[in-house]
């Protein structure tokens, strides 16, 4: 078992960080979609924290099998969680379950010292997101995804630095995940709701990067990732 999941690997890479100047010159919003997708796949960064390290190289982004804990429907992307917006909401719920459990365990471990004041609200937000998404799914007459069993690397809740670095990655993953769904959501109200959650994840990401001496705003616009990329990245955290 790898005791230091970050050993020898950067926790997360901001490939676009040095591209600000170029962005100023060339970016037009209409063209952003393609260029942002080409940034480093989040799976590379997340793999660095996975309890069962992937083979060298990035995991396949094409998530060939549904993660355990997900609803029964086959398919890739969010469709394995349900059709359309329901699938997207259940996908988001699954990610929020992960974040929520992560922070609950982190706070319970009492390893955060003065930083706990910044993390306590974050834990409350993630729990609120779980509750809100569940309530919304129920309201829509859909079945909320069940909470998967999660596994975390052994030092996640015993080493403060490891916890905070993991938090950075989870938040950056959450941001990319929500932004990856923005244009796929059909219902305006759900879009607004998802965006309002995404903004909070961005705040979390900024604060956690700040606390860990990482660049807190790596790009002038948030990046996005597909559900398949995100699900492949979190797969190591999903237990049997």
């Amino acid at each position, binding site marked *: 078992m790898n005791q230091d999941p970050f050993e020898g690997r950067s926790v997360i890479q901001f490939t676009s960080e040095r591209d*600000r100047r170029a*962005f*100023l010159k060339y*970016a*037009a*919003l*209409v*063209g*952003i*979609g393609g260029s*942002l997708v080409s940034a480093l796949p989040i799976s590379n960064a997340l793999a660095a924290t996975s309890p069962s390290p992937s083979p060298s190289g990035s995991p396949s982004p094409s998530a060939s099998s549904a993660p355990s804990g997900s609803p029964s429907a086959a398919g890739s992307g969010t469709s394995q969680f349900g059709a359309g917006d329901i699938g997207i909401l259940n996908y988001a719920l699954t990610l929020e379950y992960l974040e929520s459990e992560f922070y609950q365990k982190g706070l319970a471990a009492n390893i955060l010292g003065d930083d706990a*004041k*910044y993390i*306590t*609200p*974050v834990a*409350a*937000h993630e729990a*609120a997101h779980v*509750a*809100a998404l569940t*309530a*919304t799914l129920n*309201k*829509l007459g859909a079945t909320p995804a069940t909470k998967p069993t999660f596994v975390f690397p052994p030092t996640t809740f015993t080493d403060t630095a490891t916890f905070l670095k993991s938090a950075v990655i989870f938040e950056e993953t959450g*941001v990319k995940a929500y*932004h990856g769904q*923005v*244009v796929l959501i*059909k*219902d*305006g*109200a*759900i*879009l*607004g*709701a998802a*965006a*309002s*959650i*995404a*903004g*909070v*994840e*961005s*705040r*979390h*990401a*900024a*604060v956690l990067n*700040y606390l860990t001496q990482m*660049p*807190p*705003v790596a*790009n*002038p*616009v*948030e*990046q*996005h990732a597909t559900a398949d990329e995100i699900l492949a990245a979190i797969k190591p955290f999903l237990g049997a």
Partner: protein
Amino acid sequence: MGRTAIGAGAVIGGSTAIELLSTTRVWAAAEGTDGDILNFALTLEYIEATFYERGNAASLITDAREKDIFATIQKDEEAHVQALTDTLNKLGVAPVAKPTITFPASTFASRDSYLKLAMIFENTGVGAYLGQAGSITNKDILQAAAGIFGVEARHAALIGVISGATPEGGIYKGATETPIAKSDVLAAVMPFIGGMPNTGFAPAQRSVNYLPAGLAIGGAAAALMAFRTRGSRTPPP
């Protein structure tokens, strides 16, 4: 446009369960074309970029890391101006010209006053973008506007941290962001700008009756108006 009309949606903060689909109306009906929305955003970004250009030039932030963050924020806002301008041109819509921008004399008098207005601007920007999310019809523009929105949220949080703001209510604004209606944003920023040529924007006079009473001109936009009012009474140094 594969998006249903905004109506019954809403999300409002709170640390307990939120009804994402309550009957409270917070989302505005479409307030214009994508071009209108982009020009609205461009106006806000002009103000923000100018604000940081002047504030950073005043050397009020001295800590190396904080200074670096403020330099990054300035570059982000400048990037947003450029990207919005390029996008409007691509759409064949004339970008609004940069307005004459003025800030109360006290704004750049101290680190505290600079941080205070920075925090209000960022949180207003967050609410402004979110308020338009449901009105954007072009998916690429939506993706990009959402991407800018998230970065404004990062800025808001960072300035909160640097300001020593209380975590919940200062750095964070609850479990969800709160949209601000365009008319409220315009009312709040109008005093900082000396005219908005070629947009047709006028100071907001339309009532925002789709907002629950308690939310009308609430939060960040109200703080911005209050800052401007107080600031304008401060004699120049």
